């Protein structure tokens, strides 16, 4: 019995990432895109037409990460104009900053736009309540993964709580279904002030594939201040970790 445990432990070895500021994802990973203007923009027009969420604009040329599902099909249609890099640092404070243009070399994070009380109160301990409002489970699993043995985000005092009353903010995933809009309101009301709101995943940022669906109710987003917008389908744990560290002032992009 003890022998079998030692065997598991031995094979398991050392799994945690020592420095979360020094992580590079595989080249295959589709993160922040880079856009290039060429004389002939017909490929971009074809890609914009194909884009399932209308994330690409042609005049002027831009790509909205809040809509993008990172399927990468546009880069295959317009390889001279669109290239996905493996840069996962794509979370930021405003919805507008998610729009990538040919000038974008990184997604900027402006600490001065963060409410002053956030780094002051939460830099050493941040407890979050997650609400899945029609998230497709992949994004919920990625948020769970931030606390797992590899990422161990808990080392910075950042964790998810069971009760909204014990939390400092809410992390919302999914396009927000009508049937979840009221439970979300109730949960948010139960969080003590001051509280932060994090919108996690492209579907949460814009509604994604369901932005026109009648089964969606996005009044929450219109009524509340959002502190952090995180694109992704699903949002990679490193995107979440990087953006939250920036939000609480532990890191500067």
């Amino acid at each position, binding site marked *: 019995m003890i022998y079998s445990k030692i065997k598991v432990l031995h094979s398991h070895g050392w799994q945690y990432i020592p420095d979360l500021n020094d992580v590079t994802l595989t080249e295959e990973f589709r993160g922040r895109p880079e856009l290039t203007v060429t004389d002939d923009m017909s490929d971009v027009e074809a890609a914009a037409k194909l884009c399932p969420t209308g994330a690409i604009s042609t005049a002027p040329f831009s790509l909205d990460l809040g809509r993008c599902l990172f399927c990468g099909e546009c880069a295959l249609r317009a390889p001279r104009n669109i290239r996905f890099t493996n840069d996962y640092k794509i979370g930021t404070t405003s919805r507008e900053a998610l729009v990538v243009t040919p000038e974008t070399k990184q997604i900027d994070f402006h600490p001065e736009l963060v409410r002053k009380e956030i780094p002051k109160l939460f830099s050493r301990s941040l407890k979050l309540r997650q609400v899945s409002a029609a998230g497709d489970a992949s994004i919920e699993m990625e948020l769970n993964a931030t606390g797992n043995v590899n990422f161990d985000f808990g080392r910075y005092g950042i964790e998810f709580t069971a009760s909204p009353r014990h939390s400092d903010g809410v992390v919302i995933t999914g396009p927000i279904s009508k049937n979840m809009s009221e439970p979300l309101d109730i949960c948010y009301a139960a969080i003590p002030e001051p509280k932060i709101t994090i919108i996690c995943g492209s*579907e949460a940022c814009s509604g994604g594939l369901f932005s026109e669906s009648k089964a969606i109710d996005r009044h929450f987003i219109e009524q509340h201040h959002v502190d952090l917008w995180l694109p992704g389908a699903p949002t990679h744990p490193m995107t979440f970790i990087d953006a939250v560290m920036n939000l609480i002032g532990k890191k500067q992009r």
Partner: protein
Amino acid sequence: MNYYITNNTATQAVAIKDIPEVDYAALYDDLKERLKQEQYHVAHYFATPDENRLMFYIVLLDDKEHQIMLARFAMEYYDDIALPSLTALHPAMHPYEREIAELYNVKFGSMPWDKPLRFSENRRNRNSTIDNYPFYTIEGESLHEVNVGPIHAGIIEPGAFRFICDGEKVLHLEIALGYQHRGVETEFTSTDNRLRQTLLAESIAGDSAIAHTSAFAATIERLTDTAVSDSLATERIVALELERMAMHIADTGALSMDVGYQLGQVACEALRTMTINTTQAWCGNRFGKGLIRPCGTNKPLTKEKIDMILANVEQIGRRYAEVSDDIKSSPTLLSRFEHCGIVPRSEMLRIGGVGMAARASGLVRDIRSSHPWGKYATETKHESISQHDGDVMSRLMMRCDEVQQSVARIKSLLEGYTPETSSARPDYECALKSEHLSFGLIEGWRGEICHVALTNSEGKISTYKVKEPSLHNWLALALAVRGEGISDFPICNKSFNLSYCGHDL
């Protein structure tokens, strides 16, 4: 009664006019008898408007003869007659009849569980809302109710659970779903952009993205007469088995966590990371989004990627086997997992349980062996794994054994495999055959996934129906906790790990 007979290796969709149109009375009489036999079960049964009529389609599976049987019947759209309920005889039919009743106000006479299924946006009765779900109640001085949800304690999807308890013991659990309803099926028909439809399939249930997109791809390929190349067939099975491994390992970790077995939890977390990172290194996404596409692939395997996958699955299989061995040799774990949350085989059969959970109860429902497709049909026959006891331990052992089977499958497919130099690219433009019915039938990690598409006279998808295995298995969870202490609910729940969004659509 007359059915149109096809099977899962068919490469062509079925012309709707070739599907026999029967009387409901004849279908009812036929199914009444047929469903008493274990070899038959219904993979899909739905209604859809057809001019001024409501057309009902049924997809019946014959596991023994490996056949897919199709039939349809019609009723006038505003007919007020009640159809005799099949659920009254065969409870397995309940989600189908409940959906039809919810969407079209069709009445089923003597339906024993006449409740809304998912409070979909296009339901007929607008007064029926999710916050007034008619929960079953029992009166009694010693009884109390426990409400859990819709928001749960952990980071998981929402659903409302209502327990009726006698002290610590659960007498009854009812699960109200629909909170995740996004209108997936409607979205499929409101666009002609096939890439958009593909991404919709990927988001039906994010933990089964590969399985659902495989079902969508099969549906489209049958409607476009596209032959799947040998290498594409191989790569799809490798992807599907990687998804199975990742989720089975994740659930082993979750079960470990819930009984305080931290060693198993962290070991499985690391092994799941390794599995999904293998998928990510192949296609750029940890859940395989972007990997499966209709009529081709953007991510053909290369020599380097094949070597990477083989090396990783070898190591994952070995290390996961050590965790399985440790679980089996730890009395403290066995005392929690064994004889807990039992669903006997007879119950599983009655409620129409499918997939891994059904096999844990000894009911072998496995599309890979009963209705093989692609490489399962052409390579060596798939031998389904099953257990007997139907308890949490059986469902855990299913995972332990199926992970090793997936490792072996991936190895046998990839060892000595030479990728094609140029494989077909996805096709989002090719025309669909008009007035046809097409289907995709896949065994995902949870169980049987069945997609059905109907096209109209212009060759557009007019109806798209999705069946997630969770549609059947949620009832199995409700039955599993009866008589158990309420504190055992978490491990019972994790042992099934059912999909909310896949059910709610």
